[in-house]
């Protein structure tokens, strides 16, 4: 596993796993120059000294689906970020359970703008669920096809 230097990193979280981050519709907006919605780099900023995520391997161990991360956050989307890619960017992942989110974790390490752009590009390829938008087709089936 690549060294993350002084960045906190829990080696028991495997490289081949993923972490999940909720995405508000405010961060998935129509780009006027493209006419399509896209994800902003602003979705991958620290608040304090780390970026909150859910630890995928812990969700799996608890028998939870990734989509449950947004169960209490109607309308929010969800992206996956591969742990090995985070470590390749010099970031580290640690567990930090909080009330109501036992699989909560933090991604530590400096999120330069270049890093945030890389995280954005990674996440754009790994949508679990896109945020619900007012222009969504109400006739469109939901994730369960109902």
């Amino acid at each position, binding site marked *: 596993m690549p060294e993350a230097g002084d960045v906190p990193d829990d080696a028991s979280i495997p490289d081949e796993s993923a972490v999940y981050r909720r995405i508000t519709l*405010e961060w998935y907006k129509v780009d*006027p120059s493209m006419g399509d919605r896209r994800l902003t780099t602003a979705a991958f900023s620290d608040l304090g000294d780390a970026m909150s995520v859910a630890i995928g391997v812990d969700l799996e161990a608890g028998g939870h689906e990734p989509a449950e991360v947004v169960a209490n956050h109607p309308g929010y989307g969800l992206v996956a970020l591969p742990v090995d890619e985070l470590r390749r960017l010099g970031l580290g992942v640690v567990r930090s359970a909080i009330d109501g989110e036992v699989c909560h974790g933090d991604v530590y390490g400096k999120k330069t*703008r*270049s890093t945030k752009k890389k995280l954005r590009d990674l996440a754009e390829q790994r949508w679990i669920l896109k945020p619900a938008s007012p222009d969504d087709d109400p006739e469109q089936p939901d994730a369960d096809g109902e």
Partner: protein
Amino acid sequence: MTAAIRDGRKLISEREWVASSHETSSAVTPTRGTTSEVPEKIFGSAFTPTPTRPDEVTIRVTPSAQARLERAFREMQSFAVLDAGWDSYGARLVQSDAILQTLRLLAVVFNTREDIADPMIVPTSEGGVQIEWDRDDVHLELEVRPSLEVDVYWERPDGETWEGPLQNSQPSLLRFLQRLD
């Protein structure tokens, strides 16, 4: 045109958007003038508003820029009413001053570069505003922090990148916008 924010942050008044097409900007289009003709500052009076009232700021724009700026303002009105924690991770309230600062920044962009598409405008978790362009694999973003400082990041298709603070200088901003050409 005058943008106003009432009661701290909760209400940005639309009625202040009185058409003022006679109020044209003194900005000079770079292609028609020399660099020395381009107003030097992006933000007047340092980084503080120059209001006729404590909670409003007048922004001078060209008639063609006015509609674009109004659209941007309406979009940012929605940021001003977001509750704390709006990102589900403890995001801070978006600061009214950051919205007004972004308006000033966009006024310069729209006054001087009519050919550049409107940017995507998003709130940031720390309470600021970010504007972004993705054009032909060129990425340019300007983040107005709650402190009203502005950070710039651009990335070219060949992987070349630059990030750092934006000087309070229109020629400097215009050079960054040229990255989108």
